[in-house]
């Protein structure tokens, strides 16, 4: 303010008074200098002091993070067969802002997309109209051909704002096989049920990210940065399961369901007795994890459809409609949960007589009984401390028995006495050791531990009587899971080691290196090695002498125990206990050195087949068939009845001469035809044949190119042999090895009426249809 204080300039030519100049200088100081200072300060504050804050906000403002889906790890069986993998598919999404800015006809585009993707065009139009969004998925996992069509459409019409993005779909190449063990993934890619759920954290990969700076409206910027974080594929999970063993188990279980008209499905498993590895685990009716929402069971599906039709026929506002819809949805959900359920470890059942193995092992181990302990079964007996008279399954009684016969006959009265000798304390103690009171610890989700008696109920017999103790000794009035039973029995035969069962043997990372490896885990000792050895012999004798002859497999020493249990907790609509039964069999092979233990249980075989409902008749041959299938596959050594011989050429010989040539070889012959001389033979000359097998000699008859398989059902051993010879088939005998006429064919592996080359070996299952328990 240089003008300040100075006297006004003399007037004259100068018309500007100094007051005005002072005011201009003030204005100048304010508007040209002072006013700029807060502006500069403000800029310094924003651009230097707050730089980090605003730079971060700006970066977030400008960047797009796109998630890069990671591939879920595969699930393999023990032989690296792929049980679960991924397939590349595509999702379709819209960018409504882009559509709008490109000026696309949203209505026309929506109509076209609706038609192409088979979706509601109005719903698409609604999504396309939401301009606040950049991403609106309109279809997930579309098939490749639809994707190709859509691409053509987008390119032809030059539409901006419709995009396809890669996605992955979980695929289960084996379909229903071991479905409850493998599990499935839901639409969001989360593992549900089975290994998919239990090992989700291993299978789930690490999603990747692409961070790019983009202009608004997805405009590319010349000066941008991009950051890429690669996705990591999930780990590969290798199961202990063997797809072949699993297939054998499921095949035989399905055949049994069919043959015995089993009403409520079946469950079964194959476990390695020495390690606890699960080789197969099945629950039928199953489901297809590729379409896990669909109900697989025909009957249930029909019922659901009826329910749906019932409410759909009603007017939409009516009360009945809503109630019917609710009922349908509840039934649908229940049916889904049921088919996803792994009954081998989630549900308890009454083990019935199969449990006697544990009772006897306990009694022998602690010395409550010896092999020479005697029992007497009169068919029914009043047991002290038990209100109801105890009946044996054989009403005429088993008479005098010793310990081995008690097991072979599965005699309830003998076992009640064994339990009394054992006493509640020791019984409960062994139950605990056998792991009946705890979960097995298998590496699958959803395991339960059944329902066993309270300790006082079996130990305090003064107060509670002996009913629970005696019934418990033969596996009734309590529930355990099939898996608990199998591992307990495995410990009986493997020298007394209670194992932790497992289904995953290792988890491999993307480089193939193990990140997790399961080793057999012994939880505790149950019985001594000596008791175990005794029990092996006793269990073997049930198949050779007792109720389980139908489980026999020629060439293998099979042992096992049958079981038939009534469902005591299932009532009909009148409150009456239904007579539904679960028949089961636990088979072990080979008995000299047990390796595999197999359980099959059939839930509610129908009375309508006329076949006697028992574990011995139904479950034992099923397990026998499973063992007959899997033991050769698992390379368990077969006991051969002698050295094989090379068949001579019988052509041109007479029957007499052939007989002479076969003398002392143990090989039998069957003839077909009327001519004197042999014209051809099966098996052909030079093939290796074991003693005990059969050759077919043709006397002028032509074996032909194919033969028709006869229906062997109900034939005795002799009748079957004749029929096979006539048809030109060789016999493979499974099941009850007795030659008595009451043992008849209950099943055959080739269906009657089918064509097969002559000389094919047909497997016949012989069963004693009267075998009890």
């Amino acid at each position, binding site marked *: 303010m240089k003008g300040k204080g100075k006297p006004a300039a003399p007037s004259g030519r*100068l018309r500007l008074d100094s007051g005005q100049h002072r005011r*201009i*200088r003030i204005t100048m100081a304010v508007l040209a200098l002072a006013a*700029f200072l807060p*502006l500069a300060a*403000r800029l310094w504050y924003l*651009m230097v002091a707050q730089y980090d804050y605003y730079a971060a906000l700006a970066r977030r403002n400008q960047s797009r993070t796109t998630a890069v889906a990671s591939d879920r790890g595969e699930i393999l069986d023990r032989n690296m067969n792929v049980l679960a993998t991924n397939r590349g598919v595509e999702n379709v999404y819209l960018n409504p802002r882009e559509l709008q800015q490109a000026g696309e006809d949203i209505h026309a585009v929506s109509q076209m997309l609706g038609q192409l993707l088979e979706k509601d065009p109005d719903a698409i139009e609604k999504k396309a109209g939401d301009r606040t969004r950049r991403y609106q998925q309109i279809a997930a996992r579309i098939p490749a051909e639809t994707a190709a069509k859509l691409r053509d459409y987008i390119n032809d019409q030059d539409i901006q704002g419709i995009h396809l993005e890669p996605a992955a779909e979980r695929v289960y190449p084996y379909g229903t096989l071991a479905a409850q063990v493998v599990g499935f993934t839901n639409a969001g890619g989360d593992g549900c049920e089975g290994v998919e759920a239990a090992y989700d954290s291993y299978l789930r990969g690490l999603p990747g990210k692409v961070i790019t700076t983009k202009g608004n409206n997805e405009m590319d910027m010349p000066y941008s940065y991009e950051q890429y974080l690669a996705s990591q594929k999930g780990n590969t999970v290798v199961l202990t399961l063997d797809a072949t063993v699993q297939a054998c188990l499921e095949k035989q279980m399905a055949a049994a369901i069919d043959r015995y008209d089993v009403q409520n499905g079946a469950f079964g498993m194959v476990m390695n007795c020495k390690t606890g590895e699960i080789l197969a685990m099945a629950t039928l009716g199953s489901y297809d994890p590729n379409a896990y929402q669909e109900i697989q069971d025909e009957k249930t599906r029909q019922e659901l459809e009826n329910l749906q039709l019932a409410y759909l026929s009603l007017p939409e506002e009516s009360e009945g409609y809503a109630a019917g819809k609710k009922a349908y949805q509840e039934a649908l959900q229940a049916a889904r949960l049921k088919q996803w359920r792994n009954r081998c470890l989630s549900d308890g059942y009454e083990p019935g007589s199969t449990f006697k193995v544990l009772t006897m092992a306990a009694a022998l181990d602690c010395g409550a009984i010896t092999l020479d302990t005697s029992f007497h079964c009169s068919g029914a007996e009043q047991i002290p401390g038990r209100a109801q008279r105890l009946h044996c399954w054989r009403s005429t009684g088993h008479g005098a028995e010793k310990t081995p016969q008690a097991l072979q006959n599965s005699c309830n009265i003998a076992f009640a006495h064994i339990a009394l000798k054992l006493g509640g304390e020791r019984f409960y103690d062994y139950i605990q050791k056998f792991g009946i009171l705890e979960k097995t610890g298998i590496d699958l989700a959803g395991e339960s531990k059944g329902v066993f008696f309270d300790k006082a109920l079996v130990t305090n017999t003064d107060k509670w009587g002996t009913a629970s103790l005696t019934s418990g000794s033969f596996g009734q009035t309590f529930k355990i899971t099939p898996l608990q039973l199998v591992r307990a029995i495995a410990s009986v035969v493997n020298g007394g080691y209670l194992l932790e069962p497992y289904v995953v043997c290792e988890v491999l990372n993307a480089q193939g290196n193990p990140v997790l490896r399961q080793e057999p885990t012994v939880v505790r000792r149950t019985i001594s090695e000596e008791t175990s050895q005794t029990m092996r012999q006793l269990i073997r004798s049930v198949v050779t002498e007792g109720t389980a002859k139908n489980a026999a497999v020629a060439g293998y020493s099979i042992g096992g125990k049958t079981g038939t249990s009534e469902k005591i907790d299932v009532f009909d609509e009148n409150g009456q206990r239904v007579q539904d039964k679960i028949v089961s069999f636990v088979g072990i092979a080979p008995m000299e050195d047990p390796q595999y233990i197999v359980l099959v249980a059939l839930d509610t075989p129908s009375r309508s087949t006329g076949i006697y409902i028992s574990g011995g008749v139904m479950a034992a041959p099923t397990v026998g068939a499973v063992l007959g299938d899997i033991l050769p596959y698992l390379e368990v050594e077969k006991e051969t009845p002698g050295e094989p011989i090379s068949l001579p050429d019988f052509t041109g010989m007479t029957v007499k001469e052939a007989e002479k040539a076969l003398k002392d070889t143990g090989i039998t012959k069957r003839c077909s035809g009327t001519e004197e001389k042999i014209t051809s033979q099966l098996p052909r000359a030079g093939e290796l044949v074991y003693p005990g097998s059969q050759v077919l000699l043709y006397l002028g008859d032509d074996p032909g190119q194919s033969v028709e398989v006869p229906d062997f059902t109900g034939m005795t051993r002799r009748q079957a042999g004749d029929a096979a010879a006539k048809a030109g088939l060789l016999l493979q005998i499974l099941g009850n090895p007795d030659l008595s006429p009451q043992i008849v064919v209950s099943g055959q592996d080739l269906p009657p009426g089918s064509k097969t080359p002559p000389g094919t070996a047909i497997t016949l299952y012989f069963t004693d249809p009267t075998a009890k328990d």
Partner: protein
Amino acid sequence: MALERKLHAKEDLAPTGASTEVDPVFLFLVLLLLAVGLIMLYSASSAQSRYDTGYQISTKYLQKQGICALIGLAAMAFFSRIPAQVWYRLAWPLYAVSIVLLLSVLVIGQQVNGARRWITIAGIQFQPSEIAKFTMILVFARLTRIFGSRAKTFRFGVLGFGMALMGILVPLALEKHLSAILLMGMVAVVMMFVAGSPIQWLLAGAGGAVVFVIIYISLMGYAGDRVSAWLHPELDPGDTGYQILQSLYAIGSGGLLGLGFGKSRQKYLYLPFQYNDYIFAVICEELGLVGAVLILVLFSLTILRGYWIALHARDRYSTVLAAGLITLIAIQTILNVSVVTNLLPSTGIALPFFSYGGTALAVNLGQMGVLLQISRYRNHRKIQEATP
């Protein structure tokens, strides 16, 4: 009228000092601002231009602005030769034309960005308020000379100027053109201050204006959102706070040295109006604190030189005219940068010589021509006195 005629006696407006060339310093500063402004406009508008033209052309806005700059330069050259007396005589007629134009906007105006402020005459679309700003300054300068020392009285210095101001502000209020009212009100107050109006009344007027603005806002409900967006933009980042937040992102992420010329990211359609009202945010992002302050210094120097010209004008009328014209530039600059940095709530005030807008640029350059003409006739005694 008799009085008026007497006052512009011939010797009053006759050249007194030596007729010289225009002030080279001021000319240089204006041309420098224009050059930097055009370069930055190109950078700030390129993304929008590419987007508008289907990714074909990045110079759409630069081309239009360039043409207007040429027209403006021609106007500047022309006006730098128009004697101040011409403007003195044209003041009232132009004032009348301005009011007519402002009122005609209400009838034949066109809506641009939601506000009806534009009209088209002879194929040229422009805002009459741009003309009105100039004519208001002309009228105030003329009144200053007419009032003479009476400007120090309330009757002339407050009521006299006030009535002239109302003639412009009332049509603008009808247009709801708040930013122009604010700008002209401020320029008018400064000019009245320079003319010698009593300070207590000016302060009272300024206080009254603030009260008026507050009432205006609350009654019209028109700019209320802007105020809440000003105080707490982060509360509504997607809508009312969007504009200012995007501006702050751009400024803050510039840092000390900026991302580099042409490398703004916010101009890729994140920051709306990045090529007109918010161009300064892009400048900050690209050139950093250093570049932004340099540009502010350039403005400051230009404004300083403008007032220097006013101080050294040969007569009272020229002084007030020059002061008014440079005040207009100063206040626009200060308001614009304040808004862009969120010191003030959002108003539609452009940054002179930088913001896209052909009429405004041409008018601004033309006004600089008037200033340059004033700089031709210096009061040498005054120079000696003011700069010893």
